[in-house]
């Protein structure tokens, strides 16, 4: 592109209008940022519907995406996450970047049939991810 610069008159260097959200998106928060995703499954897909009667649909959700460099407390991340990022970038890239993982869960109620034909209603802890974090 050297010649094109020669041909054109030097334009006054005026910074492009500063688009803050664009700036944030491009520099501080990656495109596919760490966030919660849905994954709806039915127990018949797993061939478990012969013993799990309800619920018919189950959405355990999951966390996926890149963790921004300046994580700070936006994700409720401890300061250690920032340190790990700096180590990865400045000192040793074999140390992995922080990962996008679930931080909070909610319970799930299931209705199951036991091998002897008895029926059980049970509530299990930590079966649906409700919040993501970078760790």
């Amino acid at each position, binding site marked *: 592109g050297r010649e094109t610069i020669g041909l054109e008159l030097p334009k006054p260097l005026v910074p492009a209008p500063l688009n803050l959200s664009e700036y944030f998106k491009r520099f501080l928060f990656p495109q596919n940022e760490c966030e919660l995703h849905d994954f709806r499954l039915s127990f018949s897909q797993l061939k*478990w519907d012969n013993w799990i009667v309800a619920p018919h649909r189950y959405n355990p959700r999951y966390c996926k995406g890149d963790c921004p460099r300046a994580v700070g407390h936006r994700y*409720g991340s401890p300061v250690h996450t920032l340190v790990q990022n700096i180590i990865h970038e400045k000192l040793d890239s074999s140390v992995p970047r922080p990962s996008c993982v679930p931080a909070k869960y909610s319970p799930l109620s299931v209705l199951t049939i036991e*091998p002897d034909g008895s*029926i059980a209603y049970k509530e*299990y802890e930590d079966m649906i991810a409700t919040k993501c*974090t970078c760790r």
Partner: protein
Amino acid sequence: SQASRGEVQIAAGAEWEAEAEPWSMVKPLDKKDRPGFLPPLFKVLYNGQGGAPRQQPDSRALRYMKRLYKSYATKEGIPKSNRSPLYNTVRLFTSCAQHEQAPGDQVTGTSASVDLLFHLDHVTAVEHLLKSVLLFTFSNSISFPAAVKCVCNLVMKEPGFPSRNPRRAPSSFTLTSQLEFPKKYKWIEVDVTAPLQPLVASNKRSVHMSVNLTCVKDQPQPPSARDSPLNVTLLVPPSLLLYLNDTSAQAHHRWYSLHYKRRPSQNAGPKRGLSACPQGEKSAEGVRPSHHRR
């Protein structure tokens, strides 16, 4: 000595860690952990079966439990907060062997007494009994008046004991209200927590009883001779319903989350921000902030 105390602490920590690790079930279960201890989902992950072949449950019992599920959880399986926070497990057992002992009596409206045997193998050691109910179902041919009073005679027996002389004196229960369901079947629940509590607490694997039901119209003036008692025919022998509190780590403890905003497993969770750190540092380093200014 200092060293041995340190070792003891480490050992204790490791031991606690092993106990607290619910996922350490991958190791083969030892005898005391009954198969029911593993939540069904992990059982599948653990032994890879897509659910062992099962006996088909009684259709009326399944209908009752589906109705219970709809009132306790949303379509997506999220527990509703409209029920008692004390129990997180409800098990329904149908009697596996019953035979009529004495035929019913049309005059007194007494149903035939049936001999019932319930196998409670799937009640695990970590499930504590809170309430137990006998569930009677009637066909819709009976048109109950608004209020009906039933007396349930229940004789608990030692499993395998000859039915001639039951081990314990008969205990009778008076039922004063009837649960109306907008289905064609009517369900009546009789609370039998008292006789069952000691059996479940001592991990009895089966419960043997005989039961009959007498229903009369519940009216203020004493029933006169002309009032014929209700003709009660038990459509099927009653089912046994157990309301339990599963105390294992995988079960949802609603009363816990009601009282404590954050459960132990979430302590490692996200701190609200820098404001949480000083608190964390203080508790982490145990130093008094007064003379350590940051």
